[in-house]
């Protein structure tokens, strides 16, 4: 989905709050959230793609103002409700207040019907797909041309795996894009490498 989470290349943000000894956690409850969502994944209540997608489905104002671990908590709770472990009413009764959850999911999709195997050096174009459900193609590469630098082992296809849709595992390709291709005249000179699922790619004509 073209959601609020898809931040790569969005302009208008300020400085990164960086320090060399920055913490991963700032409170004990954050560690508890992190443990409980991974426990749920470990026990097969949901998978990582469902988990990521339930964060993306948060109402945009909630997404932007929630802390990282509040987003994690919201995904965990949303999936526990959707999987039938508990009702929202019961959660709110126990929490003694409103319990904001993510919005409903759109349907997923399976692999692209025709997928091509690529090799390092091949020029590829990211298909101009607009996907209602979960997708791991950041919008900033949509329709853009890059060069394959490597192939990964096969992974579950996220667009299907986040939705309980049957699909084959498929490789991702590390594709190298120049920032001049991604944001002409409007980016620092660099290459951006993105892990792109095979279904998202088509062969591009040679230069």
């Amino acid at each position, binding site marked *: 989905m073209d959601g609020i*989470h898809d*931040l*790569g*290349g*969005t*302009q208008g*943000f300020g*400085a*990164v*709050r*960086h320090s*060399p000894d*920055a*913490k*991963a956690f700032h409170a004990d*409850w954050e*560690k508890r959230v992190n*443990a*409980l969502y991974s*426990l749920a994944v470990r*026990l097969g209540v949901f998978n*990582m793609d469902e988990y*990521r997608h339930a*964060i993306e489905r948060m*109402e945009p*104002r909630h997404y932007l103002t929630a802390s990282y671990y509040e987003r994690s*908590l919201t995904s*965990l*709770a*949303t999936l*526990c409700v959707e999987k039938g*472990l508990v009702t929202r009413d*019961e*959660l709110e009764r*126990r*929490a*003694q*207040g*409103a*319990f*904001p*959850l993510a919005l*409903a999911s759109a349907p997923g999709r399976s692999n692209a019907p025709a997928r091509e195997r690529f090799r390092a050096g091949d020029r590829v174009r990211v298909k101009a797909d607009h996907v209602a459900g979960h997708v*791991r*193609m*950041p919008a*900033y590469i949509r329709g853009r041309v890059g060069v394959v630098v*490597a192939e*990964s082992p096969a992974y579950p296809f996220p667009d299907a795996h986040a939705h309980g849709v049957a699909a084959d595992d498929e490789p*991702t390709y*590390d594709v190298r894009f120049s*920032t001049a291709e991604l*944001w002409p005249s*409007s980016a*620092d*000179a*660099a*290459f*951006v*490498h993105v892990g792109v699922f095979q279904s998202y790619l088509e062969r591009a004509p040679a230069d």
Partner: protein
Amino acid sequence: MAGVPASRPAASVEQRLDAIQSVLDERGMQPGEFIVQADHLVEEKWVPENGARVVARAWTDAAFKARLLADGKAAVAELGYEMPRHHRHLVVLENSGEVHNVICCTLCSCTAFTIIGLPPDWYKDLEYRARIVRESRTVLREMGLDLPPEIEVRVWDTTADTRYMVLPARPPHTEGWSEERLAAIVTRDSLIGVARL
């Protein structure tokens, strides 16, 4: 209605978390026990010192470095480091005098956390996720790393379950140092690529 600003105030995050934990507990999932185990993992097992040891070994053992660059997951396993099952691939990115690599996850917060440690707060912040792919040199300069234009910058966006780790360039003044002493100078920031050593 889900997500719509509520007519009554939201419960605190702690109250919400307690509610979920009580549900998992009633389901027999033993969340309390797992929280204790996970605390040990995040505080003691999944730490940047792992990546630092990998780097120090690569700096002092050319054959190991070749294996690390060819198949990162198998090479770190030689040193006893595991990765979660869904991380099927570790790609190690070598910095040099000509090339600088930096990693990010624009869509969420993915990292090789068992090797380089759990991501620090700023890595997960909206600012880093939005800006590092488009304004890499500017962001790195703001973070204290001013790269000359002749160094090629490569940003790696972790959009799949392939994970990345930067292999920093070995500082010239460390000639003859022991592996242990070398490991001590490798920082988490250098494994992410927002610093050079």
